[in-house]
């Protein structure tokens, strides 16, 4: 009798312990902190994404809103229809125009990312190696352009690059050229615009990577017989790789979908997916097609990059 009651007591306490642990495992404070950005992403990214995805599976229609309903029912006639239209996606594959636009976007984004890195690295390096008091000033100079409207700055570039713009006038007056260069409304102007606009997004992660580098590593390398330029390629550059990757992604991803810069600085033959999107939405009023273009861009371009990045992050945590 006494034994059985004793064992019952033990069981009860064990299950009570388990419940206690379960309760303890939920860290409410942490959950609360994570919930805020989680909610933000849910409301402003995930739900809109689902809406766009839904629209992409409907048909274009002359109605308000301008697409067919996915689910229709009528109680009087006792019918309900559920319609998914994959035609937009098929059309994307069939028509070379969209493929060309994707490839052209990736090309323009990749080339401008490369040049952004080329321009951004020396700047980030200079800031990271300058005196700490000077760094704050230089960094705020990097961020300073954000204080004026992005659109204004792009228009300013039009003033620089146009046929009778500042650059041409200067080159003509110094006699370097005798015919004005055609720069505006070319891919060149688009590159300039993207490199200029996205430069801070490249500089800041590069700066962070370079700034946290222990400079005695360079002394150690020199001490072991490495000349300064060798030390740069063997030590500084490899250690800056996380910053290079972060900066390139921050420039490349938005540059692929860039609309304003190719619209204002590019020519009519500058084919970018952002412009295709705009045209589908506002000129053709074909919302389902535009949505399909957007979804494909996300799935084909951004998702793989994010997955790679995620895998790298996990690798770093493991090592």
């Amino acid at each position: 009798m006494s034994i059985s009651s004793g064992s019952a007591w033990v069981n009860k306490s064990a299950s009570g312990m388990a419940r206690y642990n379960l309760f303890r495992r939920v860290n409410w404070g942490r959950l609360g902190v994570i919930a805020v950005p989680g909610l933000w992403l849910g409301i402003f990214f995930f739900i809109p994404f689902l809406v766009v995805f839904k629209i992409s599976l409907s048909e274009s229609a002359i109605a308000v809103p301008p697409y067919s309903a996915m689910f229709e029912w009528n109680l009087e006639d006792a019918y309900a229809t559920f319609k998914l239209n994959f035609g937009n996606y098929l059309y994307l594959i069939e028509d070379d125009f969209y493929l060309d636009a994707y490839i052209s976007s990736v090309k323009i984004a990749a080339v401008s990312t490369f040049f952004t890195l080329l321009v951004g690295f020396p700047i980030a390096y200079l800031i990271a190696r300058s005196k700490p008091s000077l760094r704050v000033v230089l960094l705020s100079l990097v961020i300073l352009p954000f204080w004026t409207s992005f659109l204004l700055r792009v228009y300013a570039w039009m003033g620089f690059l146009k046929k009778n713009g500042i650059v041409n006038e200067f080159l003509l007056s110094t006699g370097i050229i005798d015919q004005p260069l055609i720069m505006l409304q070319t891919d060149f102007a688009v590159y300039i615009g993207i490199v200029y606009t996205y430069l801070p997004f490249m500089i800041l992660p590069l700066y962070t990577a370079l700034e946290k580098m222990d400079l005695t590593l360079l002394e150690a390398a020199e001490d072991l017989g490495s000349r300064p330029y060798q030390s740069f390629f063997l030590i500084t550059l490899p250690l800056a790789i996380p910053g290079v990757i972060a900066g390139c992604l921050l420039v490349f991803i938005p540059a692929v979908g860039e609309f304003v810069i190719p619209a204002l600085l590019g020519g009519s033959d500058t084919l970018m997916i952002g412009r295709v999107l705009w045209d589908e939405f506002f000129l053709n009023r074909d919302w389902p097609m535009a949505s399909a273009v957007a979804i494909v861009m996300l799935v084909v371009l951004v998702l793989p990059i994010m997955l790679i990045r995620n895998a790298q992050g996990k690798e770093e945590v493991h090592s």
Partner: protein
Amino acid sequence: MTSSQFSELHTPTMTQTANIPLWKREGAEPFLKIENVTKKFGDFTAVDNISLDIYKNELFCLLGGSGSGKSTLLRIMAGFESATSGRIIIDGMDMAGIQPWNRPVNMMFQSYALFPHLNVADNVAFGLRREGVARSEVNKRVEKMLDMVQLGALGKRKPNQLSGGQRQRVALARSLIKRPKLLLLDEPLGALDKKLREETQFELINIQEELGVTFVVVTHDQEEAMTLATRIGVMNNGVIVQTAEPHVVYEYPNSRFVAEFVGSVNLFEGIIVEDLPDSVRIRSTEAGAELHVNHGISCAPNQVVHMAIRPEKIKISRQKPEQNVNCLHGVIEDIAYMGSLSVFKVRLASGKDVRITQPNFVRDMGARFTWHDSVYLSWDMDSSVVLTS
């Protein structure tokens, strides 16, 4: 007797030369010559006209507090700083204008400065690869070096996967792989815990003796300097205050600074009343007694001097000892039991506190004395030294 006088006692005779360390041999050529080196940063003089000779196979310790200029001197030797004036000559070669990557010198950094993106083997191989040594030769030497520092199995690990002691050994292996003529070590054991430090000290000495490399070690830890060094250079305010073997620095400090910096010491201020060639008598109101020391000094009569006595050289007793000189009376103010030792703080009638350490050679040694006990302190004439500066 000052340190120089002390070493004269050991003047080598011709037959003994082989056993005499290089730095005591007449006309021995120093391996590393530091000649009148001064380093100024703006108005601040970090290294002030230092001259120093270090001989082959020495393990020389530069001992000093922070800001004493020891690290600056080391960085000048490595070539990371250039001296404002003066010369550094290594193995007969003037180092002026020679870049760090061309010097026959390697350095082990205080933070180890291991390359975080390279694994252990690549870290160690770094120096050899810069020299363009053939791949098979590199692998062979790296393997041998890793075995020597007992890291043979960890070649593929990244530095952040190693413990502090393992990192220290990787840093040592990396700095030795190029077989430098001179190895500079900046606080080599500073980042290790006490137990590991003691083990590593002996390992370091063994490696140094095995490879026959000349070591210059910078440290602020006097115990580390004592166990490692063949000779110690005690630095203060950019100047080397005393250069001598560890036991000489400890037993015959040449100044109050050295006496107080290396180990702990009791200092009594007093006036010379009798100055004979082999003994001095000092009148000290601080001690409240006449103090005798069994070595002479050359100084003016009535000069104010300090007598230094180490805490472990003082005997403590309840009964008045036989001797009349070097015998003080006081009251125990404080007792600290430290396991192997007990530390007593005894206050003299003059108000001066004296520190005494006694080994606990029987259990409950400390219990023999208690707070406010009236005790006598005494020491032998040859236990203390007179300091004029």
